[in-house]
């Protein structure tokens, strides 16, 4: 009730101001009139009565003001007045206002966009019920080789986790989705399949839209073949058929019974079109760490209990791979939140980008501080006049702060729009499924963040100028036409130097990333990537579990492709250069002085023309031929790295591995995505190639679960409709085998280096933004000096100085701050860039070429920004300038 009365008063005072004022005026006047009436009645003259009555009143205007000051909402009204005054000030200087708002929009926009990603990756809860109860398991190893990270788990670990850790509901899945063939009545299509264990959806707290999750029986090895459809596949391929449950679909060449359909718009760590039961065991796939575990804390249990149970269960294992080659290591396991586990690899990058965005904000603030300082100096006479007329310093300060705040909020609003656009662009730039989150949005958290940094910027750039008004000397300020204190100039130079220093760091960081990308893109590939077209198909299919069927498919399809006019070579390989490949552990070297040693290498099955099609040079021995078949001597070809690593660079041709597998050749290394030791995005890993014809049925069915082989054709020139003809050639052998897509080697390289390209694009954009802001800062500094010193320059020129000398004299002020900033920036680089070491390849942190490029770029921009505004000097007419005084 009381609140309502108060609110009503405030509203009336604000919005019925005229009426309220009129009543106040009437009331006060009535008071004086009544006193005057009494005095006239008592015999005083009318004019005397009126005069004394007004004197008794103590000034009508003062009384009214006293009432106004006590009125409800008085503070708000004064604020409103100040804001309107501020807006008028901003409107009066459109150039200044637009510069400030644009600068803020760009810097706040950059921060908003980057923060949205940080927010989606790290701050927002995962979109599941009780995300705080979801986790995954980290393995901490202390010892000669220490590590602390999420490991994949093997079948034994999974069984122990499932059976001996009652505090958790646990589930495992394949590490990444694979490609499989889905045949419907009309056509066959290539879809992404995820393999998940029982309870996987329970851990995520996802309830199927139709049907149910996999049962324990279905998840046992050789259990019944069942499938759960994603909403998208159910909708697109099965027309949202509500009676789909219990029906069989032809997946991987076999009937799978549909037991469930997932709801729309889900985020699942293992994103796929269709899910089948993982059916994990300790053998086969489960003998290695090929599963990814997720967990959910059961009601009433604690993470401490869960961790204790995991450690107890996993310490008793017979085969502890963590201890291999790491004697005396201490291994412990602990749960981490699922979100951390899922985003761990992206976090450092996101934080580094956030830091870069913060730099941009600081640079913008330094610029704006300089600009507002000039603006306040220009207004010194006005401010001095207001002070002289009785405004309190507090009032002046408040006025300036309000103007800064208005600017910051205006910039913030435009910044949100800019950030939204930047974010759209950024997401378009990212490869599909790059971020492990469903969407990145400008939600309340992001908007609150933007609002906060708007406030922060207004404080940062507003602080300096407002402080200067505190030292304003009234008499000299009113007297002088323009104040250009040298300490103000020094201050602005320092600001410019600071922003240039930050720009140097960003430029150098971007430069190093660019060098890394160039290094990776221009690595000698070891083959000829031009004129090659590749296509991938899934052989994780019942029709090709048999080696003979597999051999027939490869030989007939490559033969058909060779018939395409313009095609010179056609081949098939399990994996391609630039891609990950299958890792084969436990390779034993069987003879010679290295006999008995164990090796680990990538293994790629290939058809005989693989090396010819990719033009991988054969360095020693021979290539595979059609003679290498299922019944003949088992043979292999190794790459140069394999020979270097396991045979000490000796020619290994004629030696044996795996007892009876003869090394018949050595080929050049090719650049590939690392599988064994991820030291760089592209490496030369030791690799053994085997003839596809010598693969056994058991091997074939296992490797095709993880890898989809590629068909390769080399053409002499561009071939019209090549991809359609390739699909046609494959269909002539198997009409129900679809290609997933067609890729040139350039596409594959781009896919492998996607992270690096995104990093370069983002940091490059920010460095460019920083450079532009710095250039604007230097330009504004010199332009102001020119405007302020027109008279001094006029006198100098009248005394015989040339325009060129005057230009150098003024421009040097800007150039000097840039030079100081550059030096400071290089010192900063020495410390800050060391943090980048882990993302740099083929270049060191202190790369002289990068530094040279940064210095040159900055020098060029500085010279342009410092000279452009001095061009006005040449138009200064000394006579006219002096006459104006």
């Amino acid at each position, binding site marked *: *009730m*009381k609140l309502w*009365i*108060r609110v009503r*008063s405030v509203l009336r005072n604000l919005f019925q101001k005229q009426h309220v004022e009129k*009543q*106040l005026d*009437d*009331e*006060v006047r*009535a*008071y004086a*009139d*009544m*006193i005057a*009436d009494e005095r006239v*009645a008592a015999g005083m003259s009318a004019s005397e009565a009126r005069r004394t009555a007004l004197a*008794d*009143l*103590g000034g009508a205007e*003062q*009384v*009214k003001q*006293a*009432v106004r*000051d*006590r*009125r*409800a909402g008085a503070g708000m009204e004064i604020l409103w007045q100040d804001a309107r005054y501020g807006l008028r000030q901003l409107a009066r200087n459109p150039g200044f206002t637009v510069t400030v708002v644009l600068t803020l929009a760009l810097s706040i926009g950059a921060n908003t966009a980057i923060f949205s990603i940080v927010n989606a990756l790290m701050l927002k809860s995962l979109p599941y019920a009780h995300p705080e109860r979801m986790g995954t398991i980290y393995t901490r190893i202390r010892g000669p080789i220490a590590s602390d990270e999420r490991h994949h788990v093997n079948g034994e670990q999974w069984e122990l986790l499932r059976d001996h850790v009652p505090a958790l509901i646990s589930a495992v899945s394949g590490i990444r989705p694979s490609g499989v063939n889905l045949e419907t009545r009309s056509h066959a299509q290539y879809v992404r399949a995820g393999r998940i264990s029982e309870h996987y959806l329970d851990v995520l707290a996802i309830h199927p839209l139709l049907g149910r999750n996999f049962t324990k029986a279905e998840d046992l090895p050789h259990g019944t073949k069942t499938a759960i459809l994603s909403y998208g596949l159910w909708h697109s391929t099965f027309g949202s058929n509500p009676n789909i449950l219990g029906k069989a679909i032809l997946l991987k060449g076999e009937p799978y019974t549909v037991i469930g359909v997932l709801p729309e718009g889900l985020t699942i760590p293992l994103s796929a079109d269709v899910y089948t039961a993982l059916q994990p065991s300790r053998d086969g796939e489960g003998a290695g760490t090929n599963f990814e575990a997720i967990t959910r804390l059961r009601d009433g249990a604690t993470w401490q209990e869960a961790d204790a149970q995991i450690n107890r269960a996993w310490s008793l294992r017979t085969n502890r791979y963590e201890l291999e080659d790491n004697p005396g290591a201490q291994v412990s396991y602990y749960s981490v939140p699922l979100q951390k586990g899922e985003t761990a690899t992206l976090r450092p990058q996101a934080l580094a980008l956030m830091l870069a965005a913060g730099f941009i904000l600081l640079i913008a603030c330094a610029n704006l501080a300089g600009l507002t300082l000039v603006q306040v100096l220009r207004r010194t006479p006005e401010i001095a006049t207001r002070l002289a007329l009785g405004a309190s310093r507090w009032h002046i300060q408040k006025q300036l702060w309000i103007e800064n705040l208005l600017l910051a909020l205006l910039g913030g609003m435009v910044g949100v729009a800019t950030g939204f656009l930047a974010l759209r662009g950024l997401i378009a730039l990212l490869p599909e499924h790059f971020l492990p989150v469903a969407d990145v949005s400008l939600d309340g958290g992001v908007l609150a963040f933007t609002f906060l940094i708007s406030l922060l910027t207004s404080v940062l750039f507003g602080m300096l100028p407002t402080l200067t008004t505190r030292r304003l000397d009234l008499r000299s300020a009113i007297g002088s036409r323009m104040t250009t204190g040298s300490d103000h100039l020094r201050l602005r130079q320092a600001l410019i130097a600071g922003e240039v220093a930050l720009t140097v760091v960003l430029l150098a960081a971007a430069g190093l990333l660019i060098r890394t990308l160039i290094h990776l893109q221009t690595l000698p590939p070891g083959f000829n990537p031009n004129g090659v077209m590749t296509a991938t198909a899934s052989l994780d299919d019942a029709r090709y579990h048999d080696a003979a069927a597999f051999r027939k498919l490869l030989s007939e399809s490559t033969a058909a492709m060779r018939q395409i006019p313009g095609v010179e070579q056609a081949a098939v390989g399990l994996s391609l250069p630039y891609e990950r490949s299958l890792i084969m552990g436990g390779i034993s070297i069987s003879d010679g002085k290295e006999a008995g040693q164990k090796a680990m290498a990538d293994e790629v099955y290939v058809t005989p023309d693989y090396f010819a099609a990719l033009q991988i040079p054969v360095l020693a021995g021979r290539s595979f031929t059609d003679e290498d078949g299922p019944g003949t001597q088992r043979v292999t070809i190794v790459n140069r790295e394999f020979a270097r690593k396991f045979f000490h660079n000796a020619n290994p041709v004629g030696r044996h591995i795996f007892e009876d597998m003869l090394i018949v050749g050595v080929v050049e290394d090719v650049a590939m995505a690392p599988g064994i030791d991820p030291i760089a995005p592209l490496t030369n890993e030791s690799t053994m190639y085997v003839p596809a014809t010598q693969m056994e049925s058991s091997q074939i069915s296992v490797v095709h679960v993880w890898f989809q082989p590629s068909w390769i054709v080399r053409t002499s020139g561009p071939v019209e409709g090549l991809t359609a003809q390739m699909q046609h050639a494959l269909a002539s052998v198997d009409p129900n085998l679809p290609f997933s897509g067609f890729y040139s080697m350039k596409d594959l390289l781009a896919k492998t280096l996607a992270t690096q390209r995104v990093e370069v694009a983002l940091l490059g954009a920010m460095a460019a933004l920083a450079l532009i802001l710095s250039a604007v800062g230097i330009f504004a500094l010199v332009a102001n000096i020119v405007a302020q010193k027109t008279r001094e320059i006029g006198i100098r020129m009248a005394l015989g100085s040339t325009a060129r000398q005057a230009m150098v004299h003024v421009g040097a002020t800007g150039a000097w701050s840039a030079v100081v900033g550059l030096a400071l920036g290089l010192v900063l680089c020495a410390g800050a860039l060391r943090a980048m070491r882990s993302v740099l390849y083929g270049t060191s942190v202190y790369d002289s070429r990068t530094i040279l490029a940064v210095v040159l770029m900055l020098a060029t921009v500085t010279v342009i920004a410092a000279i452009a505004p001095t061009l006005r000097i040449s138009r200064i007419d000394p006579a006219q300038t002096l006459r104006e005084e």
Partner: protein
Amino acid sequence: MGPKQANLLQGTLDLLILKALGAGELHGLGVSRRIEQMTQGTFLVKPGSLFPALHRMEEAGWLSSVWGESENNRRAKYYRLTRAGKSQLEVETEQWATVALAMANALKAT
């Protein structure tokens, strides 16, 4: 400050205004006169204090106002106590009595 005037204690003015209006509605000058009369001339409330206080108390919901004719046909704004104002008067009277008694006792006990 003349011999007839004493400093108004913080909060005293509100109580005096409430008391002055306790007998019935008055305009601004009337309130001022009534206070002077009630305190036998000890307190003279100047318009510079009176009007802000009246407006503030009206905004607080203790007073309501109407425009009316004064004795000599001037249009004047008349204030009267609202129900909240009446209870406020009771509360403040009680408080004042407590304070006054305490002060008197304190000053007596030398």
